[in-house]
């Protein structure tokens, strides 16, 4: 490596690469936010490495190699007393170091961010780093080789992308089977162990091959090949390339078929094969193997029961029937009330992350919730039926657990305000106001009351209709609305609400002694803005000594404020007024949702005592 040349390269390209890196890191924030929503610890880093990491390698190759040859300044270097091989090695190493440094910084940022909310073992994090670095090195080696091909570099990139696309779609390969790409599989994104050694070996071998080819292009024939290739394309070549790309695209679209993704699987997990689904729970030190097995069986039983009751059909994108795969990953550091679903890009299945001490009914209900949601192609989440989904899954998850059912009824009874039709039909607003614990209990009560009125069989028929996979033709426009279906079944929304309210009144009287143990609490939320500190939220709380203030920024089209973040507040934990500054920069007139939650020992869950949608002054 030549230091003088390295200094020259940094001086010449440093600013451009730095700006490119800054833009990439800004984009990393987006990747991390999306990754968090998908539940993967390093999903953001994976997306970053596969897109901007590669893009930065391309930029670096263009700057270090293409620009030198195209600008003919390579001739100036060749005159200097420095070996051509040393020039190549310096540039190659600089590009590799730059690309690796970029993803290493991204890794450190993601790790630091994730460590704020969960415990991540250094070993797991280093596994992610090593896989990411190997991927980046291979990507850089390819970018450098393509760069040495001068005017044909984009042709090589396009050929690579088309090859990968055909391998994935037409070849029905999974990304796990494609060398280099498989280094950044879902398990790496979730920081669950290292990629296999074979993946490293493949990536290393390919990186060597690419580097060797680039070196050959730079050195053979006194560098004449690279110099010749660096010339601009002729008009004829351009037309030929355009035609080739169009033909390749046509062939690709003709032969491709949507691939079936494999089910998500991890080696060190306990699996139970149910009648209709495969259930897995990740091994963890917090749970004995018998517990894991028992949990698997419970979930398998729930899933089988729901699939049979509702006649759910899971289909792959190509229309083939696909067995759902369900996987639970107990994870230290998560709040016990939080259950997150991972977004799988390469696999099929429902992968949930939850704290090891998560309440089992909640976990089981969440599995069923996602199962029905997937089978209905997300139509079960429509507000006109969402309450029935939430209630049904909780009812199913607690069907054999009298204690859990009793607790759920108590939670329902704790609801101080009356239930009306709007409470049930405008379910997202209800969830926002009551919080998930009491809202779920209300949904549970609604479904239980409906079961009592209609009977289990009629309710099942109704729910089958509401949660089935929608028709994929024009008939979908003429489907009967849930309100009409309920009315036809003899239980219109107003009547259902009236009966639920009657049950609430009756329960509150019956459980008055238990409810009396719940202290009365009040809270008020206000927002303000100061030029120096930005937007802040004040919560005035009475009657509670331990509470948390949650918030979410509301976008223009946000209906449900999720996920909620905990606001760092100032003031003693039992202070009457606490103030928290929103840790994001929001302009004036921005919308914000804030809520005060209290951990209620009698109800064994967090209860929302205040919530408000605010417009920042």
């Amino acid at each position, binding site marked *: 490596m030549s230091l*003088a040349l390295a200094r*020259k390269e940094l001086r010449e390209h440093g600013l451009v690469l730095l700006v490119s890196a800054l833009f990439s890191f800004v984009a990393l924030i987006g990747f991390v936010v999306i990754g968090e929503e998908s539940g993967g610890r390093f999903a953001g880093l994976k997306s970053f490495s596969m897109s901007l990491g590669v893009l930065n390698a391309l930029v670096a190759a263009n700057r270090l190699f293409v620009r030198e040859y195209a*600008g003919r*300044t390579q001739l*100036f270097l060749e*005159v200097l*007393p420095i070996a051509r091989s040393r020039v190549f090695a310096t540039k190659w190493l600089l590009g590799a170091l730059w690309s690796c440094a970029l993803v290493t910084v991204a890794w450190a940022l993601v790790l630091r961010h994730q460590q704020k909310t969960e415990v991540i073992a250094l070993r797991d994090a280093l596994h992610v780093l090593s896989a990411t670095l190997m991927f980046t090195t291979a990507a850089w080696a390819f970018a450098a080789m393509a760069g040495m091909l001068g005017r044909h570099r984009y042709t090589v990139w396009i050929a690579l992308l088309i090859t990968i696309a055909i391998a994935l779609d037409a070849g029905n390969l999974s990304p796990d089977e494609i060398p280099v790409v498989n280094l950044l599989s879902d398990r790496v994104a979730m920081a669950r162990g290292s990629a296999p050694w074979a993946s490293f070996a493949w990536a290393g071998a390919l990186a060597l091959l690419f580097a060797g080819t680039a070196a050959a292009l730079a050195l053979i024939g*006194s560098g*004449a090949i690279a110099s010749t290739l660096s010339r601009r394309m002729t008009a004829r070549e351009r037309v030929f390339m355009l035609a080739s790309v169009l033909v390749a695209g046509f062939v690709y679209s003709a032969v491709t078929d949507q691939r079936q993704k494999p089910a998500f699987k991890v080696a060190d997990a306990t699996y139970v094969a149910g009648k209709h689904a495969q259930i897995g729970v990740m091994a963890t030190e917090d749970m004995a193997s018998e517990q894991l097995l028992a949990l698997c069986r419970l979930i398998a039983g729930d899933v089988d029961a729901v699939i049979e009751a509702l006649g759910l059909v899971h289909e792959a994108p190509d229309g083939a029937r696909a067995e759902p795969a369900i996987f639970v990953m107990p994870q230290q550091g998560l709040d016990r009330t939080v259950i997150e679903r991972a977004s799988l890009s390469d696999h099929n299945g429902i992968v949930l992350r939850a704290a090891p001490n998560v309440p089992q009914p909640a976990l089981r209900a969440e599995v069923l919730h996602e199962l029905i949601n997937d089978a209905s192609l997300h139509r079960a989440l429509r507000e006109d039926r969402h309450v029935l989904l939430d209630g049904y899954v909780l009812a199913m998850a607690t069907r054999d657990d009298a204690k859990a059912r009793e607790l759920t009824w108590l939670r329902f009874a704790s609801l101080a305000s009356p239930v009306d039709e709007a409470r049930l039909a405008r379910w997202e607003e209800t969830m926002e106001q009551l919080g998930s614990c009491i809202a779920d209990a209300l949904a549970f009560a609604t479904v239980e009351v409906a079961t009592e009125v209609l009977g289990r069989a009629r309710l099942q028929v109704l729910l089958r209709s509401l949660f089935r996979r929608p028709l994929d033709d024009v008939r979908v426009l003429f489907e009967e609305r849930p309100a009409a279906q309920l009315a036809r079944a003899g239980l219109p929304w107003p009547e259902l609400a009236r009966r639920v309210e009657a049950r609430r009144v009756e329960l509150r009287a019956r459980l008055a002694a238990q409810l009396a143990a719940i202290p009365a609490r009040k809270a008020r939320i206000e927002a303000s803005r100061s030029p120096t500190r930005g937007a802040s939220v004040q919560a005035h709380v009475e009657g509670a000594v331990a509470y948390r203030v949650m918030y979410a920024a509301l976008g223009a089209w946000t209906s449900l404020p999720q996920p909620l973040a905990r606001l760092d507040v100032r003031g003693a934990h039992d202070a009457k007024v606490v103030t928290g500054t929103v840790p994001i920069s929001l302009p004036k007139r921005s919308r914000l949702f804030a809520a005060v939650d209290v951990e209620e020992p009698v109800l064994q869950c967090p209860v929302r005592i205040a919530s408000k949608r605010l417009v920042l002054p």
Partner: protein
Amino acid sequence: MAGEAIGLSDVRRKFGRVRALDGVTLSARAGEVYGFLGRNGAGKTTTLRVLMGIVQPDAGEISLLGERVKKVSIELKRRIGYVSQEQVFYPWMTAAQLGRFVAAFYPTWDGVEYARLLKVLDVPDNRRAVELSGGTRTKLGLALALAPRPPLLLLDEPTTGLDPVARAEFSELVAQMVRERGITAFLSSHLVDEVQDIADRVGIIQAGRMSFEGEVPVLRARVRRVRSAEPLAPSPGFSRVHGEIWQAAPELWAVELWPPGTEVQALSLEDIFVAFARGGASQDSNA
């Protein structure tokens, strides 16, 4: 050969089917200015690139600064100054920055001398290369080539594209540097005027082969125009270069008996060069 700065013996190099060098043999003595003449595409640049180690020859022998070399080493390259046909510098660098960058590769780099050369050559050290005129860039190239104090200077058509005044200034500068430092300069050009003013000896390359090598007076004594009304059949030792232009050893010209009415004229170097060039061309076309 003792005192030989550059020696090429039967050097060959092909690019695909094109024979860029087809057995070039030449010798430049230490301390002289060697004018290397040839038409565009005759093989001048390839010869210089071979000498700089930028291009490897397919065959032949090379000696540089008294060393017989198979491949031009980095050490040897440090002792050669090179001014290329095209002054390709990093456009964003100033002359001062270029000096600092290039200095890192030459242990013998003389920063004071570089500054002096910039001043003498009137090259501003604080302006970016892209902002400099063609003539100033050429001078900058010369300063960069001379600052390491090399014993050998290779100039590959450095004045191409310069106006006549700038070209004359550059030639004077080169001649002055060579005189002051006693270095060897190998100046390739297709501009005869430029070469004949400063070259001690010239070599003419045609289609990858050397047509002539020697001192300019010797060349002028060898090649002359013979105008005659009758067809000529000179004595053995004479050969036709092209048209009315013949060559022979100088002593043969003195003793040759020409038919009455025949006019023998001395030629300028340019006329001789053109005759060699045309002769080569006609030979090629005949072939």
